[in-house]
């Protein structure tokens, strides 16, 4: 379970962008958070991903409250979470070949020897050919680079995936391919998903439950937990 309990966070203590937000994600659940640009949803995603320390409030991850953020977080906690960001160009080291980019988390956690097998295993279903894996970010398209960034997020087999508008820059087919890859991973591992974005149609199709930012700020009770909430939209039958 991933529980955000009355989180207040931001970049200026006097004017936090996130104020007293609570949201609970059950194990294996996919929750989509909708909101306009600049509302603070990305900041909340960064808090959930242990990348931004909140001013107040508690994050409880799998039953245990989180005490350290960023490099203060214990490795076991950090590796339980995979993150995919909006702009693949800004979240990839331009010097690394795609194969090394994907394997980077393995190297960072001292599991270098697993790299070759794990990269091959992840690259194939994502359509990353050996030729693409040998290239550097400037030699591939945004869609191809985001596929590699997704592989990097999955390489340590996280129990939670945090996605901050991973497909906002991409065309419809690449979007559908990335979502399919994430859903395949979740089906195989039972990982939970927290996706933020502004594309209503996409998040409703993708996630088990979508909540709107305005409903989180209006009440401390997550709207999905309220019976009959119109925003607790279920995925249509037959969706992947």
């Amino acid at each position, binding site marked *: 379970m991933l529980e955000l309990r009355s989180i207040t966070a931001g970049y200026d203590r006097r004017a936090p962008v996130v104020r007293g937000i609570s949201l609970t994600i059950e194990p294996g659940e996919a929750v989509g958070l909708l909101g306009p*640009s600049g509302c603070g949803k990305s900041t909340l995603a960064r808090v959930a991903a242990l990348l931004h320390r909140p001013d107040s409030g508690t994050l409880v991850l799998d039953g245990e409250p989180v005490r350290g953020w960023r490099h203060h977080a214990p490795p076991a906690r950090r590796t339980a979470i995979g993150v995919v960001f909006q702009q693949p160009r800004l979240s990839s080291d331009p010097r690394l070949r795609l194969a090394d980019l994907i394997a980077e988390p393995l190297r960072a956690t001292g599991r270098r020897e697993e790299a070759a097998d794990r990269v091959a295993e992840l690259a194939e279903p994502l359509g990353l050919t050996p030729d693409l894996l040998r290239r550097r970010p400037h030699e591939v*398209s945004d869609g191809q680079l985001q596929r590699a960034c997704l592989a990097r997020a999955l390489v340590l087999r996280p129990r939670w995936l945090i996605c901050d508008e991973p497909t906002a820059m991409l*065309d*419809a*087919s690449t*979007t*559908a391919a990335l979502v399919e890859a994430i859903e395949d991973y979740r089906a195989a591992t039972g990982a939970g998903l927290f996706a933020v974005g502004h*594309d209503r149609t*996409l998040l409703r*199709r993708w996630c088990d439950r979508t909540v709107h930012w305005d409903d989180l700020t209006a009440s401390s009770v997550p709207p999905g937990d309220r019976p009959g909430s119109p925003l607790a939209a279920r995925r249509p039958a037959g969706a992947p």
Partner: protein
Amino acid sequence: MTQRPEPPVLSVHGLSVRFLMPGGHHVAAVTDAHFDVAAGECLALIGESGCGKSVLASALLGLLPANAQTAGRAHLGGLDLLAADERTLARQVRGRMIGLIPQSPAAHLTPVRTIRSQLEETVGQLTGVWGRASVRTAGEDAAARAAFPAGHLDRYPHELSGGLAQRAATALALVGGAPLLLADEPTSGLDRDLVEHTVDELRRHVDTPTRTKGDTGRALLMITHDLTAAERIADKVAVMYAGRLVEVAEADSFFGLPGPRHPYSRGLLGALPERDFTPIPGMPPELGDLPAGCAFATRCARVTDACAHRPPTTGSVACHHPHRPEEIRA
């Protein structure tokens, strides 16, 4: 939109762009593109990132790098844009005949000057308006045309929201009264409400008659990967795949019934979350290493031996086995 008697504002015939790379090989970024855009009409050019859409736009503006070679013709108001020299492009075309609405307005605007100062400079450069007071009024009029609030004119670009920065950039593009607007991914990175707002405003500029021409509106060439935005604004749709226009169709029949005819276009629409949400298998080929036959063949369910030969791009669909209206209805 139906046929109009006037000639098209922009008429592109057999436009090709190649980049010469070190080592003697070349990248075919755009190959043999044919399309027209009429006054009061919006053509949406759609396709995946890296398919050559933006190169096509740069070719029209004469903004290609030195290692690019172009072929074909692009007629705009009696001028062939591809044959024009830099002096003609700079003095007659950019801003005056083509207004560019850029992909990232925040990067397009000068960060150290106010919106008013940038508008007034553009007014001074592109129109005959002269004198401090008249330039000021003309600048305010230009802002009003793009619905940019007068109260924000003295702000710097970083003080504006994404939507307002977009309007400021649009105001600059409209100053010269250009008959053709070229919008390169105008909605990239905006949220859904802002996307709808931005394309509705662009549509309004297409429908609003230009001051110089009287009765006809502007022509808009919008380059986008956002199919929802294209559906909202376009009269015609051109689908680009691996540097080629594979389908040019009326927007109504493309997004509605009978739907697109090229298998790639059908796959692209089918991938939308409001439709099948199923990706097209595989990835597009490299523009530097295109196959001899149809570039989509390796991803296509309708592939046959005929696909080893390149389908002609002169018709409305470049495919050996396009979907036919009668089988789509069945």
